[in-house]
């Protein structure tokens, strides 16, 4: 393609200017990648921190909301459906539901649970607790308890109980000591503290007690069902999608983790919008840089373009020459920027503070490389459209007479 040869020749005829131009584009792309990787990394870190000790999707029985019923228009009847409170809210068919969930792609773990409120009584000390009854083999499925044990062991057994350090301190308990559990269903049983854990989360360490599902059943008067099923996913970002599917498939209420953390979601969205603005400004600066360089080039080459037009070279050829210059600059700058952006992000991600933590929550693999390469190349081609159009409209007579 002869236009490509001409475009290449124009770019290589002034190597210093071309190198500066490509470097400018590459810098813009590097900024774009850095911001993208930083925002993605921050979102991942925050999401991990929030969901590390909790479920990505929670399945519960449907709510008991009263519903207004409207009848046939001709009959004009109206009434209110009252939901029965004579039955316990529970998931009776939890085994088949668990099987359905396990078959879903992207589900990494699930935990059927009996959750309820109770008091722990030790002598005159009484503390309200949130009790979670779960299958002992799935103790760490949702919240990593065993790795966070500071004393005792994770084997729940028939009368075992695991509590957090804060709760243990409030009640003066240590591993191996007995404690009375009194539930809001009237159940009461003397249990043994098997282990004490410390997750670092105040809500868990001071308010939650874990026991086995079988131990929980009589205490909460629930011989068959479970109160909720907690689910972990490989990708927390798919929680809404999975929740929607499970709600439709089971008729249960499925709540993704985002709905329990609306403030976090708002913050992540605001952060994402800020990032988008910075990315947009990076792209605009690239487009302006390429456009101004090509406008100057078109002006400097007026007489050359004029003579081409005099020879009857088509305006389309001139447009192609200038737009191909934009394409080459965008592609070269984009590729160089991707390499330097990845290098910068990888370097920053490798930095650690005294405690071995990364000071910048950067995700080099989430730099949006393909997107920025396409956007930069398109932007540079778009930026060359104006100078290309103006060059193709140069009056040959005027240019030659200059």
């Amino acid at each position, binding site marked *: *393609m*002869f*236009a490509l*040869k*001409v475009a290449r*020749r*124009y770019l290589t*005829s002034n190597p210093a200017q071309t190198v500066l131009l490509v470097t400018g584009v590459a810098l813009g792309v590097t900024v774009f990648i850095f911001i993208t990787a930083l925002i993605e990394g921050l979102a991942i870190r925050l999401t991990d921190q929030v969901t590390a000790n909790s479920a990505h999707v929670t399945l519960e029985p449907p709510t008991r909301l009263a519903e207004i019923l409207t009848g046939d228009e001709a009959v004009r009847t109206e009434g209110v459906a009252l939901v029965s409170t004579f039955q316990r809210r529970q998931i009776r068919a939890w085994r088949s539901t668990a099987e359905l969930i396990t078959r879903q792609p992207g589900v990494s773990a699930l935990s059927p649970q009996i959750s309820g409120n109770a008091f722990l009584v030790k002598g005159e000390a009484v503390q309200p607790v949130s009790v979670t009854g779960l299958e002992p083999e799935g103790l760490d499925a949702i919240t990593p308890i065993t790795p966070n044990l500071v004393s005792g062991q994770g084997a729940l057994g028939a009368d075992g109980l695991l509590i957090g350090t804060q709760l243990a301190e409030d009640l003066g308990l240590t591993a191996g000591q007995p404690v009375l559990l009194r539930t809001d269903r009237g159940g009461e049983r003397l249990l043994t503290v098997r282990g004490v854990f410390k997750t670092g989360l105040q809500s868990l360490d001071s308010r939650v007690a874990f026991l086995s599902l079988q131990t929980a059943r009589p205490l909460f008067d629930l011989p068959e069902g479970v109160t909720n099923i907690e689910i972990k996913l490989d990708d927390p970002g798919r929680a809404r999608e999975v929740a929607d599917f499970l709600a439709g498939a089971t008729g249960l209420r499925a709540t993704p983790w985002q709905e329990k953390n609306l403030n976090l979601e708002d913050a992540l969205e605001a952060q994402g919008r800020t990032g988008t603005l910075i990315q947009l400004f990076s792209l605009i600066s690239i487009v302006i840089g390429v456009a101004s360089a090509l406008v100057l080039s078109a002006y400097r080459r007026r*007489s*050359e373009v*004029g*003579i*081409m*037009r*005099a*020879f*009857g*070279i*088509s*305006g389309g*050829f001139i447009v192609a020459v200038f737009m191909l210059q934009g394409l080459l600059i965008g592609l070269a700058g984009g590729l160089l920027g991707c390499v330097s952006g990845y290098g910068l992000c990888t370097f920053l991600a490798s930095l650690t503070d005294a405690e071995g933590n990364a000071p910048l929550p950067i995700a080099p693999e989430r730099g949006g490389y393909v997107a920025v390469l396409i956007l930069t190349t398109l932007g540079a081609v778009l930026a060359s459209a104006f100078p290309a159009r103006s060059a193709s409209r140069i009056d*040959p*007579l005027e240019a*030659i007479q200059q």
Partner: protein
Amino acid sequence: MSRVLQARGVVMTFRNGDEETEVLRGIDVALETGELVALVGASGSGKSTLLSILGLLLRPTAGEIEIAGQRVEGMSERARAAFRNQRLGFVFQFHHLLPDFSAMENVAFPAAAPAGGISPEMRRRALSLLDRVGLADRADFPATRLSGGQKQRVAIARALMNKPDLVIADEPTGNLDLRSAGQVLDLMEEVNREDGGTFLICTHDEHVAARCSRRIQLVDGRVQAQDEGSDHRD
């Protein structure tokens, strides 16, 4: 001999606000194949304007123009550009070579750009034209490394690349020293004599006009006389 160019009643009026300036006032000219014609006249006589109109770089206010048997005044801009590319050759006072290309690439450019590349056949013709203008050994030289006279000879080769019916030259020796100007004139005469190329040369130089087979004298936008030249070729 066949007629290459026929212009009848060509009028050109430039408008500047309410003021109108009539630069050409009904020009009738004709060129036969193989002629070497000088277009002469004082400054402001309208010869450059007429040359631009006959080269399809400017549209006349009125008049009919036929080049190589085709009426051109009604053509679209795209068709005029294609016609310029295929049927006309241009040599300007300044060579206007493309500085980033070699002598051979400059010569081949008018054929290569529409075709999308320099084919082996184009390369052969460009090299043969460079040989014709005595610059075969400079084919790969960048245009910027050629002397003024060499550049103008490359410009003549470029004008001949697409085998035009008519070569329009605007003061082709105006920027050259005497020796280079003589070489360029010799070259045009040679191409005219040996290949039957038709040239219309706009000049204010009496020596150049004297070497043409015919001269068209413009005075105040009108053809005053069409004389046979002194014809130094014999």
